[in-house]
């Protein structure tokens, strides 16, 4: 390999030999990125299947679900989901989606694949650590899934695992024995993997940029992954010890989160001195930044893709980066807004409310930058472009409800209701998923060397876009009417009139879920037999489009690019059309 002497060098490793080292235990960031994405795909299918079961149960609680009785003879004897199994499904759905989909796909998956290429590096800074983080993530996933197969079934204390319900063991209910321990072990492992990953991302961004790739020239997606890894480094470093303390409470008889005098299942618990609120503080100190870990890569991906199809530079690039940094910083000052009614000192509510509301300023500006970018553009309606536009719409819808929940005076009424479910599904579930879809349609040609089918992609977009609004918009109405969340059935008198709306949501969810089969089919089919992709099918400018589809082992075949331009020079005149590649000669 010949290259200029001043090029940054990664810890060198030769192209791998043999199937195992090429495709399984690979040190190549591209293979690892795809492994993360494949894991997220398996996880999202699992998570969505669980949500289907929950939705069907909520709409028709007494109806046996065919075949489920055999799969879960304890949790759903005769196919009728028990209340505890519903909560288990909910816990597993939340945990799988938040950790193994929304963190794994947009951050670890796409980030791993494209961050090194976008900065012109050959690989991540620490390829072995990179491989380790994927395999630890996989083990974490398997440990979590194994909770389905232990005696009492999966844990039921929600993805937030509030102590002491999560800390006292089997007396607290089915699944709170081995299942809950597996949960805590899984999340601990996941934190280890994410910490390793974040270190790798930060080092790669800071040290391995190619010649001319100044921070100001970095693509927005790279910026977003970089900022996300900084958030992750702090957030997961808090969750990991919290989970270890939880494990100690459960298996070693400590009392970090368990106070004295608790009587659970007629037994006086042998603990004293702990604080349930301590868990909530530690969890949400991670949990709120986690929301941004899920959504900031989406911001980056949209800011990266939208200019490509608007054929126009992003409006206010420096403002965008500034907003991302501001959001990341503020994300550490707001965790208490999850705890307005938790028994925390009510005086601190205002303290947490103000920064929460302040976050809406950068969030609004970011949205306006996207909308302003569309103004005067020459929009091309490819599938990734549609998902970008859809992202803006669902992000607005999800962000708006934050105005309500950020205020303790309104949270008093809405906190325990479906309004919150609507809020976080729109803003971190659906919006982040739209970012993932946009990224998948956009980068699939680069990753697999084959184009995805546009017709199927557009069907997928329209059904999903309308579907998610049918599923999640009505949840706001449920919340206003006082419909409690985390209920496995609505037996309260005042909730009964809301059941028809729940049935509507369930039907919409089944259709929207089924529409994802189009995506799955399109993805698998394109990956195997799709038409060969050119190197730069979208006429985009960033470095990943300067190399072949898919890129060679070291990304640039021994000729690292030299960068002399910004990431989104569209709309002018260049040698190949209305754009100039980052790697073009100055």
């Amino acid at each position, binding site marked *: 390999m010949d290259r200029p002497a001043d090029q940054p060098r990664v810890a060198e490793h030769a192209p791998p030999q043999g199937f195992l080292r090429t495709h399984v235990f690979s040190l190549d960031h591209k293979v690892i990125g795809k492994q993360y994405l494949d894991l997220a795909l398996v996880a999202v299918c699992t998570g969505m299947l669980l949500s289907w079961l929950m939705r069907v149960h909520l709409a028709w609680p007494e109806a046996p679900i065919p075949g489920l009785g055999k799969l879960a003879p304890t949790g759903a004897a005769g196919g009728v989901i028990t209340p505890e199994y519903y909560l288990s499904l909910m816990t597993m759905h939340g945990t799988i989606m938040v950790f193994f989909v929304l963190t794994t796909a947009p951050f670890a998956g796409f980030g791993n694949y494209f961050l090194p290429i976008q900065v012109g590096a050959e690989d991540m800074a620490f390829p072995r650590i990179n491989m380790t983080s994927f395999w630890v993530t996989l083990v974490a996933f398997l440990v979590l899934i194994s909770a389905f197969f232990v005696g009492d079934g999966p844990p039921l204390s929600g993805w937030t695992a509030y102590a002491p319900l999560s800390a006292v063991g*089997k007396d607290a209910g089915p699944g709170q024995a081995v299942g809950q321990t597996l949960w805590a072990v899984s999340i601990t492992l996941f934190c280890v993997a994410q910490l390793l990953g974040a270190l790798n991302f930060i080092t790669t961004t800071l040290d391995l940029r190619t010649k001319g790739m100044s921070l100001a020239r970095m693509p927005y997606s790279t910026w977003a992954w970089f900022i996300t890894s900084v958030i992750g480094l702090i957030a997961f470093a808090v969750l990991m010890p919290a989970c270890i303390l939880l494990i100690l409470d459960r298996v070693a008889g400590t009392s970090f989160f368990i106070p004295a005098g608790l009587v659970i299942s007629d037994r006086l618990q042998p603990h004293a001195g702990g604080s349930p609120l301590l868990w909530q503080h530690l969890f949400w100190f991670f949990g709120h930044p986690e929301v941004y870990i899920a959504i900031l890569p989406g911001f980056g991906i949209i800011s990266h893709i939208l200019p490509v199809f608007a054929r126009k530079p992003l409006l206010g690039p420096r403002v965008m980066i500034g907003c991302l940094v501001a959001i990341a910083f503020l994300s550490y000052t707001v965790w208490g807004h999850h705890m307005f009614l938790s028994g925390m000192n009510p005086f601190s509510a205002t303290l947490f409310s103000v920064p929460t509301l302040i976050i809406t300023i950068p969030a609004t500006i970011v949205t306006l930058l996207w909308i302003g970018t569309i103004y005067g553009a020459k929009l091309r309606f490819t599938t990734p472009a549609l998902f970008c536009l859809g992202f803006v719409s669902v992000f607005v819808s999800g962000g708006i409800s934050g105005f309500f929940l950020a205020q303790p005076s309104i949270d008093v009424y809405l906190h325990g209701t479906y309004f919150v479910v609507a809020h976080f599904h729109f803003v971190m579930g659906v919006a982040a998923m739209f970012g993932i879809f946009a990224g998948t349609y956009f980068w699939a040609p680069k990753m697999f060397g084959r184009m995805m089918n546009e017709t199927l992609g557009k069907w997928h977009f329209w059904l999903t876009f309308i579907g998610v609004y049918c599923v999640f918009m009505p949840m706001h109405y449920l919340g206003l009417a006082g419909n409690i969340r985390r209920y496995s059935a609505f037996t309260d008198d005042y909730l009964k009139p809301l059941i028809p709306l729940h049935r509507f949501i369930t039907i919409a969810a089944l259709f929207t879920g089924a529409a994802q089969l189009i995506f799955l089919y399109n993805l698998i089919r394109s990956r195997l037999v799709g038409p060969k992709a050119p190197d730069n099918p979208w006429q985009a400018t960033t470095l990943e489009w300067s190399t072949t589809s898919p890129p060679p082992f070291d990304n640039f075949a021994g000729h690292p690019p030299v960068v002399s331009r910004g990431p989104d020079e569209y709309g002018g005149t260049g040698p190949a059309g209305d754009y100039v590649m980052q790697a073009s000669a100055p």
Partner: protein
Amino acid sequence: MRAYHISVLAVAVVGMTALGVRGVPPAPPAGGTISGKVTYTGTPPKMKPIDMAKEPFCARLHAGAPVMTENAVTGPGNALRWVLVYVSAGDRGSAPATQPVRLDQKGCQYIPHVLVLQPDQPLEIYNDDSTSHNIHPLAKVNPEWNKSQPIGAPPIQTKWEKPELIPVKCNVHPWMHGWHAVIATSHYAVSGEDGAFSLQGLPPGKYTVTAWHEQFGTQSEDVTITGNETKAVNFVFKATPY
């Protein structure tokens, strides 16, 4: 052809076995009888009406006459109900019980309050209410379990392997309490409203008869049976109000 014969034979055998079990009524017990009455002295706790407001379905069922607490059920003449009386020593091998016993959850109560069964005897648990129930036997010797039984779910089929007095609670309805008394003998009875009990069909021998009440504890008497006689044994428990 041969397979056909075998299967016909099998059907016939199974059919006859079934008839043998179900068709013939159990023979009247031969042997001695121990009978008597369980009473208390002192002041037992008041039986309190259970307010089931939390579960509107059950509250409606008992709108006229509220269900009373069952931890100390008393009757006229200081009779004490729900006392388990059984042969705790001297039983020379009761046959293993194969008939399933049935526990009902009806009107947010366990029926019966004290359910007696033998190790490995099939236990069937039914939810007769239009609401979900939860069954949580707080077993220590046997494996503890905790399961819900929603409306529309099939009966729970289970059994207990080892002798134990197991308190059972419904996690959803805190007032629902009962007992599964797993004892290794077929000679047992539970005192009725009048406190009376009767153990029948005892072959000649020396026995220890034990009476157990969930709040007032255990008492035992030694009894010798020599033939087809009836021996009277009475138990008196000392009750406290709190």
